[in-house]
């Protein structure tokens, strides 16, 4: 199973800080970046260049910003949960919004966690450490999409 992290973030500085923080805490999972909601959907559905799953593997974790150009974060989340093969994909919201409606909608639409973007590198390191420890180490994630479909199919065959 791939250990790629997909970061959906339009702000180049925030992309830099996130990568920098991951690097500093020694998290070496490959990171792919989609800079708007449309691109995130293209990546996950494997269209155009993203059809090459060698270069653009299915991620084990999506870090999703909410304020995005073209397709907003919550719409991306909604789309993800509507795809049968992406239903179990771990999606963590990483937004600067602390508005309760944003938080509530994120959970309603099936976010696995909601993190608020910190404003300094030390706080960001702390957040990255948390992600590394909990989501990448302690947490038992769902099977990768293809394995998952195969498992369902296999189970289906075995059922009398």
């Amino acid at each position, binding site marked *: 199973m791939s250990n790629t992290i997909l970061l959906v973030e339009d702000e180049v500085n*925030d992309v830099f800080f996130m990568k920098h923080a991951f690097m500093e805490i020694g998290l070496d999972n490959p990171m792919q970046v989609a800079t708007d909601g449309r691109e995130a959907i293209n990546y996950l559905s494997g269209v155009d260049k993203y059809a090459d799953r060698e270069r653009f593997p299915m991620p084990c974790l999506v870090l999703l910003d909410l304020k995005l150009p073209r397709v907003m974060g919550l719409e991306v989340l909604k789309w993800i949960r509507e795809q049968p093969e992406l239903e179990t994909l771990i999606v963590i919201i990483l937004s*600067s*919004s602390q*508005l309760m409606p944003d938080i509530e909608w994120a959970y309603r639409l099936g976010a696995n966690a909601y993190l608020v*973007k910190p*404003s*300094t590198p*030390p706080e*960001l390191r702390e957040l990255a450490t948390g992600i590394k420890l909990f989501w990448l180490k302690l947490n038992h994630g769902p099977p990768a999409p293809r394995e998952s479909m195969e498992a369902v199919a296999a189970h289906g065959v075995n059922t009398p």
Partner: protein
Amino acid sequence: MAEKNERFEMQTLTQSPTDGNGETKLDEAAQAALRVSEIRYRRLFEAARDGVLLLDPDTRKITDVNPFMIELLGYTHKQFVGKELWEIGLLKDQQASQEMFHELRENHFIRYEDLPLKSTTGRTREVEVVANLYQEDTREVIQCNIRDITQRKKVEHELALAKDKISRHAVELEQTVAERTAQLREMIGELEAYSYSISHDMRAPLRAMRGFSMILLEEHSAQLNPEGIEHLKRIDAAAGRMDVLIQEVLTYTRLPHEEVKLEPVDLDSLVRQIIDTYPQLQTGGVEIHIEGVLPGVLGGEASLAQGISNLLTNAVKFVAPKIRPQINIRAETIGDDVRLWVADNGIGIAPEDQARIFKMFERVDHASVYEGSGMGLAIVRKAVDRMGGQFGVESEAGGGSKFWIQLKKADL
């Protein structure tokens, strides 16, 4: 006919004391008294500004009519006498007339609040009719008093129209007020959403400024001289202050615009919880004393927590250098209210500055000495306002401040 009728009346009066015996002879004085009485009541009949009709209950015909009645309808005395009521248009038909006489026989009294009448010239009058059947010596007489209420009805009608118009205007006014209020609310909502969105967007470049200056400090300070490092620290501090300011604007716009739903709040546990959760209240130097157990108040827990935490962090923030912040918290009962006092040993506020500190962005002190956005007390004020409470301060420059929040007392 009128004369004959008058004579007839006179006879009745003069005859009655004899009462059929014929033996009693009226003396001169009694005769004179009778004449006086007759004149007095005839004057009443003739001068009245109400119509008077006399009717024979058996024939149902008019036997006499006063001058005002003649004036009212335009019939002559002669035309009146011998007619039935329905013939002069007072009742709509013969059947109505029969019903009236039947009721008069039963009750000796009848009253019509509002009857239309037409004069001979076609003028419409509205009248109120009171009829009495009474015994006049040996026979019965019906007297109808007819009051012209046309003017009164007209005034009443105009009054009703005016009232109707006023109430229609009131409804329109209320509607306009409701519409405008809704528009204003919507506008305020949009403005607040807008300011929220702007404030939110302003944090992204700030994060970049702070982030890059801190990375420079952490990873590249070897290539910088002490002056360069100092400059970087100043960039970070300034960006940090702006971040606090923006976050407080966000907090302020996030406070509800509507009244907060009030419910009993355990002030004691809320205050202790706030003290436990705020790091700046936890440092060893800060001394906080709570007098006794604080009572319950009616408020919104979130708004109240916002207000109290701002007061406490303020109290710690605005102290003279090298002074240990000391905060004393106590509650005072004032009638049905509870006033929560937060007293500090801080720099205090001169009386002339006290009105300004509750407004947005107003700061009394010099920005470089004390960190702050100038939003803190505006947030407390808005939060307390939303709970229908009061907020104030007692202070002197250099003498510490006593802030208070007053809310309704609640049983827990």
